[in-house]
């Protein structure tokens, strides 16, 4: 952990830091609800957590040393309530219980803080349940909402208008590389490479810099545009994408599902013997069934997230091709995938810009389709067929 203030966690977000730290020191700059927006990976939930730490800091505005700061950052502070949706949406029931928690006075800290990451995943009913609480919360309660900025409209307007907006920007590669070196101990060369190919996504940069499997998967995805020449290749590519997503979900469920189930059964007293254990066993079984449902939702979410990551990489490739095709010779161009510049130039020579644009649109249409619940295999195969040629 760093020895500086909590704000050093936020990479390349100086304007936002200024606003937030002012709010922690001057009471007139503070307000009861904040909405953090920014492109994926810019650190919305990190910003929210950091802000929470600074608010709970017992030394002033985020020293990073006191128990208020450390527990809030670690997610164990008693007055910080994070809501992290593992499924595809946040339900009304979840929000209603949260509203009750938010109505209490802080127990140890200065504020009662509720953090909702992915506020775009609030269902309509859930955001309605929040409205009243968010408009006039108790004096010492703060709501921190996070939503991706490429569609802030996903947060209903009634919620949006009740919050103060903090816009995060895409952090510059140099800032990302610096933080990878300083915080994660990655060596400079790897850090610079990862920062240049991550598209401004700090978490992704770290993953690419530290996890060889992630690097391999990215390379595999970026081989797709050059490898799909015939229709049969399209099916192989689709297979690669789908299988990677399924493997990711599988891996996660293997790591967590069984131990979670076992823990729940133990907590509910399912394996007791003797008189009177039948009722405990019954209720444990019911609880396990519910847990299984949640685990299934989580698997779907993981599968889609992995797939989406791959699609974004793929879209980045076609975007690069378009940029190169439209670029004016000598000027230095910022590419999404500078390490694949050779293939990109090659593709830009072979395809008309229209063809590249059509492919880019196919990838984006596939992302949309998956958001519409289209079976991933059907959506991806249709996209891959459009990439052929």
């Amino acid at each position, binding site marked *: 952990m760093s020895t500086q203030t909590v704000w050093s966690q936020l990479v390349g977000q100086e304007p936002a830091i200024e606003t937030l730290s002012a709010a922690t020191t001057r009471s007139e700059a503070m307000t009861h609800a904040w909405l953090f927006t920014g492109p994926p990976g810019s650190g919305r939930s990190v910003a929210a957590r950091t802000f929470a730490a600074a608010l709970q800091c017992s030394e002033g505005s985020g020293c990073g040393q006191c128990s208020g700061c450390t527990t809030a950052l670690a997610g164990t502070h008693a007055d910080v309530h994070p809501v992290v949706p593992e499924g595809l949406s946040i339900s009304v029931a979840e929000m209603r219980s949260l509203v009750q928690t938010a109505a209490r006075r802080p127990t140890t800290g200065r504020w009662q803080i509720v953090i909702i990451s992915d506020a775009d995943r609030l269902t309509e009913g859930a955001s309605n349940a929040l409205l009243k609480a968010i408009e006039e919360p108790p004096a010492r309660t703060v709501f921190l909402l996070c939503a991706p900025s490429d569609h802030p409209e996903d947060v209903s307007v009634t919620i949006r208008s009740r919050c103060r907006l903090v816009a995060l920007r895409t952090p510059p590669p140099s800032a990302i590389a610096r933080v990878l070196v300083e915080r994660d101990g990655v060596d400079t060369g790897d850090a610079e490479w990862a920062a240049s190919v991550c598209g401004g996504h700090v978490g992704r940069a770290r993953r690419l810099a530290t996890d060889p499997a992630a690097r391999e998967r990215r390379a595999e995805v970026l081989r797709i545009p050059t490898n799909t020449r015939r229709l049969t290749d399209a099916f192989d590519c689709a297979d690669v994408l789908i299988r990677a997503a399924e493997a990711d979900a599988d891996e996660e469920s293997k790591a967590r599902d069984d131990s979670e189930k076992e823990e729940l059964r133990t907590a509910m007293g399912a394996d007791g013997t003797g008189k009177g254990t039948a009722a405990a066993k019954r209720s444990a079984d019911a609880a396990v069934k519910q847990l299984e449902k949640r685990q299934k939702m989580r698997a779907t979410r993981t599968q889609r997230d992995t797939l989406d990551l791959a699609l974004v990489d793929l879209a980045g490739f076609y975007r690069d091709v378009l940029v190169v095709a439209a670029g004016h010779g000598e000027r230095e161009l910022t590419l999404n995938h500078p390490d694949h510049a050779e293939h990109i130039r090659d593709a830009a020579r072979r395809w008309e810009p229209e063809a590249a644009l059509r492919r880019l649109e196919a990838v984006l249409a596939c992302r949309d389709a998956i958001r519409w*619940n289209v079976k991933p295999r*059907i959506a991806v195969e249709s996209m891959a*067929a459009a990439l052929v040629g």
Partner: protein
Amino acid sequence: MSEPANAARPVQLVLGDEALLVERAISAALDAARRADPSTELTRIPASELTVGTLTELVSPTLFSEGRVVVLDSAQDVSNEAAEAIGNYVPDPVPGVVLVVVHSGGGRSKAAKELPATLRHAGAAVTECAKLTKPAEREAFVRAEVRGAGGAIDAGAVTALVESVGTDLRELAAAAGQLVADSGGHIDEQAVRRYHTGRADVTGFVVAEKAVAGDGTAALSALRWALHIGVAHVLVADALADAVRTVARVASAGRGNPNTMASQLGMPPWKVRKAQGQARGWTREGLTTALEIVAELNAEVKGAAADGEYALERATRRIAALRES
């Protein structure tokens, strides 16, 4: 129906879960026993409630040695001890008592699963009552039904009857019996059509098959029937998507032996063979567009379109038209 040879045997195993056939086997056993002794009593007990004690009680000889038929229902749920007791009873049955064990073929415990094999070994008479899954089996069933009722039916009429009544054996049996009574013995297609109209059983696969074959009219009429009998939109859309991707997959893989291609493509050989036939008349561009259509349709039936039925019709027509052109 003619009397099954098994009906009078002292221990009978009725294996399978086709309710109609199971009931028939039981009543055949009862009838046979009653012919021998009209005062025969019928006792039915769910096997899950059976204990060694009750079994002994049920099969022990009575004072006046009246005949008795004991039916153990759902023997797949039998307890270990009871299963063992049944196994011990079979080789040496009590005279005048007919034990009918009704078993679905499944079962949770080891003893319950092995019960049918044990009974077979011990010499029990076995009546197979598995569900009829193949169309040919169903047609044979209809023919046998008609013959049993004392009539005759021609091939066209069998197809028409199965098509319009569906797969439920009770309904088929009832319809066959009624038709024999109404038509005075000989049933032809016209007779079937007089009493039965419509299609009882259209799945999304029928629609998809017609659509990729380029037969737009037939595909649309199959689609109307499917929607009419309440097949979910999503199922039809999935069937269409599957048909298109299978054709695209097989067509793009080129010609070859279906058996070797099957393992490469991860599909059963019959599917490859069928798709090779369907692939004729499809171009690469056509297939790409068709893949796009089915992906779009998948979103549409899941809420993207205002009217899922219209979306299905439109997609079906477009896919069929792509093949025709």
